[in-house]
């Protein structure tokens, strides 16, 4: 066992898959000699060569389109978006080409599109986004958002092995802030589509994912300390496909639920989750499920503004107490 950061865990996962399967290659901007702005692919070009770690022009459509073409032929490309915000530039390629390829044409497109997402880092409006909601309504894609180092490793490996295109949203706030002991020898693999109970509880469920899981855990501890209530924290880990069963099970157990995410509220993923809760366990609810999300504005740069716009631990505490 050694302690690895969330970032190192992703790096290890990619490295292991590169070693295991020659069909895997990496493609993106500045991932070679630089190793990417956050060093997720550090040392990989030196180890695996420039043919398997391809530095591209500033061309997100080309990165993802070329990955798709190579994937049709048997490769398993892993694409890096330098910041996930720029995935917007390849929105057509992802939603119209990649996502539909299997259904309309029986084409295999096992690609991973990964990159740093998320706020709380003073990144301003274009280096802080959480694009889950932009792709949730795209059948054919899978969406993964790990919260822990173990899941970051286990899910990147599962994503690379998956037969279908997977969007892998890393949270840059977690990159170096969280550490975890990971087994040396044995292989870490986390199944896509399966949620994780991050904390057992009986009074209330917080359904969330990615960096918000840690805020939910903080809130849960505070609520136990101060109010003596047991909050269950459900870490979805995968948003598409969504682990409906895990959500239903937890809600039936606690009868009270908050859905929390970092993206803006209107049109965010929480709406989908609440609709499903409503469809499947309406009768079990003691109170309406409520959302704790960012305010409906672009994410501003100045600390007091970013802190105000994004949901904080205190907000989860207040919302839980009110519920």
């Amino acid at each position: 066992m050694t302690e690895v950061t969330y970032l190192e865990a992703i790096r290890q996962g990619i490295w292991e898959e590169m070693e295991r399967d020659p069909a895997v290659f990496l493609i993106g901007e500045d991932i070679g000699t630089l190793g990417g702005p956050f060093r997720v692919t550090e040392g990989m070009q030196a180890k695996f060569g420039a043919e398997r770690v391809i530095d591209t022009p500033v061309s997100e459509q080309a990165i993802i389109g070329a990955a798709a073409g190579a994937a049709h032929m048997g490769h398993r490309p892993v694409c890096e978006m330098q910041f996930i915000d720029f995935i917007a530039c390849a929105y057509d390629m992802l939603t119209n080409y990649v996502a539909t390829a299997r259904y309309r044409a029986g084409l295999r497109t096992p690609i991973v599109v990964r990159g740093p997402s998320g706020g709380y880092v003073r990144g301003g409006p274009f280096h802080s986004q959480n694009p889950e909601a932009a792709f949730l309504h795209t059948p054919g894609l899978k969406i993964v958002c790990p919260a822990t180092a173990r899941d970051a490793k286990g899910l990147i490996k599962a994503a690379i092995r998956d037969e279908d295109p997977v969007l892998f949203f890393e949270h840059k706030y977690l990159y170096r802030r969280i550490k975890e002991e990971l087994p040396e020898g044995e292989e870490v693999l986390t199944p896509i589509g399966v949620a994780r109970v991050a904390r057992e509880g009986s009074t209330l469920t917080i359904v969330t994912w990615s960096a918000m899981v840690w805020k939910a855990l903080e809130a849960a501890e505070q609520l136990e300390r101060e109010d003596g209530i047991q909050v269950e924290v459900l870490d979805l880990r995968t948003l598409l496909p969504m682990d409906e069963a895990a959500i239903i099970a937890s809600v039936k157990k606690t009868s009270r639920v908050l859905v929390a995410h970092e993206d803006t509220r209107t049109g965010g993923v929480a709406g989908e989750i609440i609709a499903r809760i409503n469809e499947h366990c309406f009768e079990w609810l003691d109170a309406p499920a409520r959302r704790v999300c960012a305010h409906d504005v672009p994410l501003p740069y100045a600390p007091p503004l970013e802190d105000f716009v994004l949901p904080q631990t205190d907000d989860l505490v207040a919302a839980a107490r009110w519920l």
Partner: protein
Amino acid sequence: MTSPDTPASSAPLAAGLNRWQLLELYYWMRLTRSLEERLVLLHRQGKVVGGLFRSLGQEADAVGSAYALEPGDILSPLIRNLGSMLVKGATPLEVLRQYMAKAQSPTAGRELNIHFNDLERGFLGQVSPLGAMVPVMAGIALHFKLTKQPRVGLVYVGDGAMSTGAFHEGINFAAVQRLPLVVVCENNGYAYSTPARLQTAAAHLTDKAIGYGIPGLRADGNDVIATYETTRVAVDRARAGGGPTLVELVTYRRKGHAEHDDQRYVPAGEIEAWGRNDPIDRYRARLTETGWACGPDLTLTDERVAAELDEALARCIDEPFPDSSTALTGVYADPLAAPAEWYRSLTPRPPHD
């Protein structure tokens, strides 16, 4: 084609092509046009479910360019490249089924017209967003390069598609990586109603090659031999590791963008003028004048095409649409099918009081 490749006929006569191959070019062009003519009738009869797109007058550029590829090479067509698809082994039966959305169509009725693919035979059907296939075909060429296979990718773009960001990003990436990709631009004068001069200020579309640091070649797209020869140069260069080439084939779209388009935007006389430059008429004349083929060869070929189309049509005309039960499968490898929506499996309750 079944005609035996006898020594006599196998001596190269033009562009390194023998009698048999020269006649085959005619066959593919004729097959393309006749198939479209059948589709027009079917469209009038309401048998074509969606829109119908013609390549009348462009058969030579489609056929000649695709003919420059080898088995194992892969192309991606545009809407006017029915001929290219046929050369690469797509069958009239498949095309008829696609247009009529038959259960037996290559996409089982999910996609339209020539939006279908078989990477074994060597064609990857396009999606509608223009330009998207350029990065994708760059990826297929990247696969050839990474696996060190002497194979080539070819992607068609129109004078319109070249204005898209996807085209730019894809061809630029291919150029930087020196990928075995040939980008064939069919300059047919229009993008829907938009004339080429409103599409680019460049004097020639091949000028764009300079901006990507790759060679550009231009040929008369209504001359099937010239089209073949020029594309062949680009294909050979790509196969030899020389990287991408932009090939401009100058032709003309004599029909509307789709069947319903009345071409109100076309200057008077233009279509007629190009009609006198019909690629099939030109090639027929050339075949007979040069003696590469004789009248009977051509008649025989025309009859054969008609017979093949009769047979294909007879086979599929009465086939059913796909069954609705197939609509939900294959979005993912796993799960195998999307769930049917709840409202489809309800036992109605008594009316509300």
